[in-house]
């Protein structure tokens, strides 16, 4: 069997699993899967900056939050606002925010970058908290209509969890695919090179600051769209839900636990975090404490995350096989 055919068969099997999964696992776990997909794509977008460009953002919730608020506000104030419009406005709002902060953020690196993103994130949090008339403050915006998917011949109601799962899978899957494609392009090489040696990139003739700004804008926009999907999923957007520091930290932890050195690491990380959450919450309420301990252990003993650990195990197996031979 040729490699291409094999790959197509794997993809088809994967697709069939994705389609039948919600009918097998039930509504509760279907919703868990949607949350996992959102976290995974959020972690991937953070990893475009962290793993590929070497920029640690502590304030990515600002893009997530603005995307979510833009979706919620449009659905609240514009009668019959279409679903495609929600995705579009989430993307545009995050893109605009990224364009505003990028010129400043692209000039700094390391701790300064992390602290500035944190500051901008917190600024937006406070603004949204204070502008209660618009954002609803801590109570947030809730109860807006969730538009259906217009397919021409019929409308698909995405308040149904299974339908929403399919919708989220398509939107978030496309975003993940876009990011995967991006890191394979020559621009992806530039990102990695900036991470490894920004000055060297500069005297090869590239504008490092512009490239960094572009990565930030792309990452922010993707996160904004995830925020829009969140708004549709939860039917509630509040400062605590979308703009707190923890909203930025959670996907960061996912990226680290999965492994920032690989593209797919953050997806594994987001999945592992969900499994930990699920298991821990059965025994204790201190889920965050356990997550924190796991995070510390990962940073200390597996700095390349689960994927890095897998690489090490593979290398060790290969070595012992060679020694036996």
């Amino acid at each position, binding site marked *: 069997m040729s490699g291409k055919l094999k790959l197509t068969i794997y993809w088809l099997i994967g697709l069939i699993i994705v389609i039948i999964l919600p009918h097998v696992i039930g509504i509760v776990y279907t919703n868990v899967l949607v949350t996992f997909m959102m976290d995974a794509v959020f972690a991937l977008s953070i990893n475009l900056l962290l793993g590929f460009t070497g920029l640690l953002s502590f304030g990515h919730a600002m893009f997530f939050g603005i995307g979510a608020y833009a979706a919620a506000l449009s659905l609240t104030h514009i009668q019959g606002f279409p679903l495609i419009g929600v995705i579009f406005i989430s993307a545009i709002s995050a893109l605009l925010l990224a364009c505003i902060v990028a010129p400043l953020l692209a000039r700094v690196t390391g701790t300064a970058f992390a602290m500035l993103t944190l500051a901008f994130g917190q600024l937006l949090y406070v603004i949204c908290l204070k502008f209660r008339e618009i954002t609803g403050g801590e109570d947030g915006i809730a109860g807006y209509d969730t538009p259906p998917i217009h397919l021409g011949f019929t409308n698909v109601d995405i308040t149904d969890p299974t339908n929403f799962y399919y919708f989220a899978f398509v939107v978030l899957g496309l975003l993940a695919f876009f990011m995967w494609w991006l890191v394979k392009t*020559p621009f992806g*090489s*530039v990102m*990695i*090179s900036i991470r*490894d*040696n920004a*000055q*060297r*990139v*500069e*005297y*090869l*003739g*590239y*504008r*490092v600051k512009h490239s960094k700004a572009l990565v930030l804008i792309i990452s922010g926009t993707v996160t904004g769209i995830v925020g829009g999907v969140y708004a549709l999923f939860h039917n509630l957007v509040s400062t605590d839900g979308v703009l707190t520091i923890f909203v930025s930290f959670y996907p960061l932890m996912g990226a680290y636990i999965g492994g920032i050195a690989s593209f797919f690491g953050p997806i594994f990380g987001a999945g592992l975090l969900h499994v930990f959450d699920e298991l821990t919450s059965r025994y204790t309420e201190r889920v965050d404490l356990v997550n924190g301990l796991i995070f510390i252990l990962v940073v200390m003993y597996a700095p390349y995350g689960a994927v890095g650990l897998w690489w090490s195990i593979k290398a060790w197996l290969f070595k012992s096989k060679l020694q036996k031979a």
Partner: protein
Amino acid sequence: MLLEVKDLNTYYGESHVLQGISLTVEKGELVCLLGRNGMGKSTTLKSIMGLVKPKSGLINFKGEQILGMPAHKTARVGIGYVPETREIFPNLTVTDNLLLGIKKGKYSKGVGKDWTLERIYEHFPILKTRGSNKGFQLSGGEQQMLTIARTLMGNPELLLIDEPTEGLAPVMVEEVRDVLIEINKAGVSILLVEHNIKVALAMAHRLYLMGKAHVGFEGTPEELAKKPEIKRQYLEV
């Protein structure tokens, strides 16, 4: 004249590390900057490239004033820089490292035909065999070859090369020397900082000997051979 540096003064904080340096590179020339450690040779290259900002002086490249230009712009006007520290991208493959050097349409067409992957592989066959290896898997000599080749992919008219044979095994030193001579013959002008006098004398058209922060001698290798006292004064420890 391709490059003209006149009365260049550069400071590191309070230290006056380049005190009125002047030098020229003609089209097609291979010029060597020689001198003991700490004389300002690398700083001269960095000042030309825009990595260090000189306080005063003139740097003309093809008649254009480039003093104080940021490094990415200097690269775009046609100057390539190969640092002493090599600085390949360790997590990219050799081919990706090379492709990163390309700047489509934005660069001077160079002298003769543009550098392509095929042409690079003709001059650096080792890079072809190592194409899919990651940067960190290369030996020091291979890394040096890759750095030079990657810079060539940007079609520079002038290459600034900082101590390319530093730390290399004698056999690799010869290979690097031959490659530099080949590249120069292909039409790329080179301003080379070199600590290995033998290597420098074997390939340079002209030499500049640097004393403490200034140029002490300018001439051809033959002229230098006739002045052993100069050689002793500026090169011997």
